[in-house]
């Protein structure tokens, strides 16, 4: 099942890239499509942040992940680069797991 997911999502994402290269720009260049495509990552990434921070299956919980993400926000506000953000969150959560 994991392999199927890996291969299907890879094929689909490649076809999206290829479509842009090969397609006459008629419908993709519509301003509406462009706006939606620009906002799509914002919506999905925001949703993923919440789901991954508070979700365990179908329940919302407050645990070490929330503390890690809170620290990540602080580090982002200090304009730290991406790897620092990820490591700061991981270290926070790891420390809380030790307590």
């Amino acid at each position, binding site marked *: 099942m994991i392999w199927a997911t*890996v291969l299907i999502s890879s094929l689909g994402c490649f076809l999206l*890239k290829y479509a*842009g290269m090969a397609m006459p720009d008629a419908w993709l*260049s519509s301003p509406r499509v462009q706006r939606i495509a620009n906002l799509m990552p914002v919506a*999905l990434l925001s949703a993923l942040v919440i789901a991954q921070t508070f979700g365990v299956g179908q329940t*919302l919980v407050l645990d070490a992940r929330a503390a890690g*993400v809170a620290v990540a926000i602080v580090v982002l506000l200090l304009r730290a680069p991406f*790897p620092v953000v990820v490591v700061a969150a991981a270290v926070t*959560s790891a420390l809380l797991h030790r307590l």
Partner: protein
Amino acid sequence: MNQEVELPDNERRRITRDGLSLAFTVGLYGTAFGAAASSSGLSPWQALALSALLFSGASQFAVVGVGVITSWPLAVTAITGALLLGTRNALYGLRMAPILQVRGLKRVAAAQITIDESTGVAISQEHLGLPAMRHGFWVTGLGVYVFWNSFTLLGALGADALGDPAQFGLDAAVPAAFLGLLWPRLKGRTPWAVGMAAAITVLILLPHAPVGVPVISSAVAAVIAGWKNGGAK
């Protein structure tokens, strides 16, 4: 703007250096992806397959972000999330096609490395003409490809060797990675509104809807906001 002016050597070297240093920095994130993949039950080969075949960071995190894929609904969620996040690459392709003017296998290769970074570097060379844009695209795209895949394998093997992911805080690293990807996109009122709407959607739906549905439902926020007006961006 579409001039075929020759690219001076010093500019070519500068573009190579800029492209490769960006590629290395971005490639480092591959370690986080490899580790996240491992904590979601992917083998190092499956993690590497995603980096080599899918090759688009946010979409890859979406696949491993659903957790351990044990049922078809979870697989569909992972695939749908990856595709929705991959839609912007189609727009990059559209932008790059007239610049690259490639056919056949070369077009397949170009399509595979059409991502945020290669398109970004290419477009920022616009004042230097088409050869500079093409050079920026290929150097950056191929550079990210090599570094991203290498660091993915490193991260996956490393996390596998370490054991329990939560003990090393990897459970918090995944949402933090999403947040890091989201942060630069939160410029202006519309993105903030879309982000908040998506967040609230998940908080409301998560306890009631089947796993995966809340995240996919958040796409509606982007469609509604994008459909309405072109004013604020």
